[in-house]
């Protein structure tokens, strides 16, 4: 294949207009050019706030993890339910996500992007062009994703920001459930999205969500983290405290289960960062723990139930070899059956580890994944239920928990023994994590999609309410 020959448009239906796809999530914000296979820009949605010489300063992106500045506090503009709380900061964080790596300070045609400018002496002829160029997205249509339960007000606010603050020539707001279905190559699917703050089940039919079937509950990755914290508190040889790396100055190896021997850094109170900074970094350690240790009991029955051969599943889990984990301070331990227990409550609310200190309330059975799916299916027409069950798309970074899809498969088979249940979950980690961004990337680079953009002109004519009419 000769790369210099363009594929004919009829072959893949693509037509790239250098659109930018922005997929804001609770934990991370993904941005990139449409038509690419992964987002070029991946930043945490958290931002840092501190004051330096009496001035308030803000930091975004990966910078927030690096330096424990004095008084640095970490915030998230998005609420736990996935809806934006703080619009000013959300706008800034999102803007950072594409200006930092995609568009640059002065976006535009590479011929005119300043590198090939005529040397001094000649002033730019058009003054009004300069004004529009100051807006970061003047050249790129913008496709944004949103959660399926985003209220109308939030949607209108989003298009206002995009049109008025960023000056995008065209805008579209798509549901991330739909985009995830597109990324899996399906127009109709039941999208199970296990995110950081929320898990959601979205029935998608012909590229549109079925609003009455949308279900969500707060048992996301952060909930699993809180379960792990609860587990650490009641850990058997000794309660485990997570000490993030920035507080460790040096450590020596210790035997498993032995108290850590490490030298800690101390910050004087006026130099110390805020507690939220520590929480953020603890969360990173917990993410690592989730990736390395935590495992979902594969089923087919619950962890608390008795297995098919009469042995309780807990016994079976105990007999399987444990997994070791070393914390930043050098403490290490092998985790046995506990590594199953911390996620079991995603499927069985009763087996949640009780933790009175946790910010998250104890889960109810209705919030578990199988119940959400059941509720979602009951909310849609009976004729498409079987089709949806045959097209379950699992996405979201927390769905990468080891054995999650197997267990989900077993649960669904038990719930619906009749129809065929088929789960499609990409094996590729980045496809699972960014599937709604990838779906947006596909959508925004389709030639047939360009008639759906809300243009600046239409926005000026109809006002922000057009988003409800057009992005159905």
């Amino acid at each position, binding site marked *: 294949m000769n790369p210099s020959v363009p594929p004919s448009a*009829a072959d893949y239906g693509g037509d790239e*207009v250098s659109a930018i796809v922005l997929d804001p999530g609770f934990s991370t914000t993904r941005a990139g050019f449409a038509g690419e296979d992964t987002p070029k820009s991946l930043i945490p949605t958290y931002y840092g706030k501190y004051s330096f010489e009496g001035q308030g300063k803000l930091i975004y992106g990966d910078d927030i993890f690096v330096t424990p500045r004095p008084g640095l506090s970490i915030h998230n503009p998005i609420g736990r339910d996935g809806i934006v709380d703080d619009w000013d900061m959300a706008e800034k964080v999102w803007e950072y996500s594409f200006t930092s790596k995609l568009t640059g300070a002065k976006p535009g045609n590479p011929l005119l992007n300043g590198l090939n400018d005529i040397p001094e002496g000649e002033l730019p002829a058009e003054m009004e062009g300069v004004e529009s160029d100051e807006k970061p997205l003047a050249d790129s249509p913008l496709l944004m994703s949103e959660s399926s339960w985003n209220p109308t007000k939030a949607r209108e606010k989003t298009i206002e920001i995009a049109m008025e603050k960023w000056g995008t020539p065209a805008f579209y707001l798509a549901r991330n459930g739909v985009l995830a279905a597109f990324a899996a190559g399906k127009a109709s699917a039941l999208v199970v999205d296990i995110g950081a703050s929320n898990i959601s089940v979205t029935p998608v039919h012909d590229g549109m969500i079925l609003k009455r079937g949308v279900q969500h509950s707060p048992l996301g990755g952060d909930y699993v983290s809180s379960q792990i914290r609860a587990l650490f508190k009641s850990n058997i040889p000794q309660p485990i405290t997570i000490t993030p790396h920035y507080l460790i100055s040096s450590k020596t190896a210790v035997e498993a289960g032995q108290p850590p021997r490490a030298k800690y850094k101390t910050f004087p109170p006026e130099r110390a960062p805020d507690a939220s900074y520590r929480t953020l970094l603890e969360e990173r350690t917990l993410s690592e723990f989730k990736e390395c240790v935590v495992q979902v009991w594969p089923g087919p029955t619950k962890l608390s139930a008795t297995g098919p051969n009469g042995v309780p599943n807990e016994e079976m889990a105990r007999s399987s070899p444990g997994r070791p984990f070393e914390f930043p301070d050098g403490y290490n331990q092998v985790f046995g059956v506990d590594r199953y227990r911390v996620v079991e409550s995603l499927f069985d609310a009763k087996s949640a580890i009780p933790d009175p200190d946790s910010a998250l309330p104890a889960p109810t059975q209705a919030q578990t994944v199988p119940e959400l799916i059941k509720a979602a299916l009951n909310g849609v027409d009976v004729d498409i239920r*079987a089709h949806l069950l045959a097209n379950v798309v699992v996405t979201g970074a927390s769905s990468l928990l080891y054995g999650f899809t197997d267990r989900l498969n077993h649960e669904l088979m038990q719930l619906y023994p009749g129809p065929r249940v088929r789960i499609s979950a990409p094996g590729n980690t980045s496809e699972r994590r960014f599937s709604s961004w990838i779906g947006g990337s596909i959508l925004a680079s389709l030639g047939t999609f360009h008639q759906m953009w809300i243009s600046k002109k239409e926005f000026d004519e109809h006002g922000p309410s057009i988003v409800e009419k057009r992005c159905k």
Partner: protein
Amino acid sequence: MAAADVRDMLDLPAEGQQRPHKKQKVVEKRPEGITRELFALLGERAPPIAINENRYKGRPKRLDRRPVRSWRMIPFTNGARSDGLILRHWKVQPEKSGEESQTNAEHEALKPVEEEYPFVKYNVKARVPNRYTTEEYDRHLQSKDWSREETDYLMGLVEDYDLRWVLIADRYDFEPKPIETTEDPSTALVPHKEPRTMEQLKARYYFVAATMLALEHPPSEMSEAEFDLHEKMMKFDAKREANRKELAGLQLDRTADEVREESILLEELKRITANEQEFVTDRRELYSRLDVPISVGNATNYHNSQGLSHLLQTLLQADKSKKRRSLLGPEGIISTPGGQTPITNAPGSARESSRADTPNAGPVQPPTTKKAAAAAAAAANKEAAQQAIRTLTPAEEARYGVQHHDRLAPGVQFRSDRAQKLTQAKSHVQTQKLASALAELEIPLRLVMPTERVVKDFEKLIHSVNLLLDARKVSEKVENEIRVLESAKEERARKAREAREKAKPEVKSEQQDDDDAPIPSAPDANNNKGDTSKADDIGGGQARPSTSSGPANGPEGDTTSGTDHKGVSHKRSASVLSNASDKSSKRQRK
């Protein structure tokens, strides 16, 4: 990417000469850690594990030496949009020569290219019916269940969602206006809102759409597709649809046990049908075996009595082992294949009778063949069988086509053949006459359905036709004679007159002598034909066809019964007549 390529792409002037292309030497280098001898042993075949060398992949060779084409960011408009949004995409610039293209391109880049956007053609909308006017609504579409506003809302949704009912039902959220009262607005009632089901929405929409379609084209003028659509929409039954959905829901929510039971039942059903198939093939094989005459080839074995008795024995053995008693009588008169063939082919009792008869053929065969040698051996067996066999009533006999023959010709013969033979007379002329007579009666020469009764009647018919033909022949003969005699008589009378003129007594004696001969013949003929034929005879040649065709044209029964008794007398009289005429002709010759 070389600097030259970048320049090419951006259409910047090339800097100096193109550098000569370096040829890359492809030499398989021996990886480190493998001795030369060992590497040589690897030979031509590549090792199963790729040995990676630490070097960059070479750039792919460009085959054509032309400069790269230039791509341009070109603005375009989309015909499917109404707002003329200008977006920009990269396009290959059609190749142009030299400097002037560059300036042109600069200009072109500023205004959108006026060409059809290729994706516009995919912008299709579902066909929705015309919107009704207020007048039309009031006249045809009123419903006590649906307000005008709600119907409008529904039609809008249908258009928005392109008739995707799942989505329409999902998004349907009609807010009825509060009922206006004269009192203060805070007490205004909001009508109770009950969620509409998809079936209700469909029923309403189909009603509206069908009515609008019928208003546009009355059903008599619709095209076929439109008419089908109209029919389908008119026939939509919301209740049935709702019931179907309920059942579908039940089917989806089966418990694991139910599913297991169903799968077991399905398995069972599959097994049964498979077995049935097997059973059917087995049975067919059995039938084909029973229907085929046993060893037709070497019938010579059974031409002597020994062979026959041997055959009988084997057949009896087979019969016993089958342990099947035949339904039909031990008289076994029916069972010669000759008498049987048409009956077994008859639709009603075909299978049963053939099945029942075939095994019976064994014991029955001997009496029909001339040899009764094996009768003794069969006797005991037969008697035992006789008790188990019931006799048939005449009605049953008729139904099963059982007949009793006194004497049977050996071998197979077809009744249709017999009927065919009847139509063949000895002479060709006669055959033709027979055929024309049948044609006149509108009876086909070859019988369509040669059943027993039909063939019998046919036989009778042919017989009487033959008689009639004979009678005609005879009557023709007699007429001829009469004419001859009359002419002779005239001749004589003339002669007599001449003679009288000469000598009277001579003539007288002669006349007396001549009259003696014809007198006995005339009353004979009259007797034969009866009164009617007498009149015919007098009428002469012209009346002759009516004698033969007259009775033939009449009803069939009449001819048969009428000619039957006449025919007998005819035969006799014909011979008498011919004798008589013979005599007279001889006399004439004298």
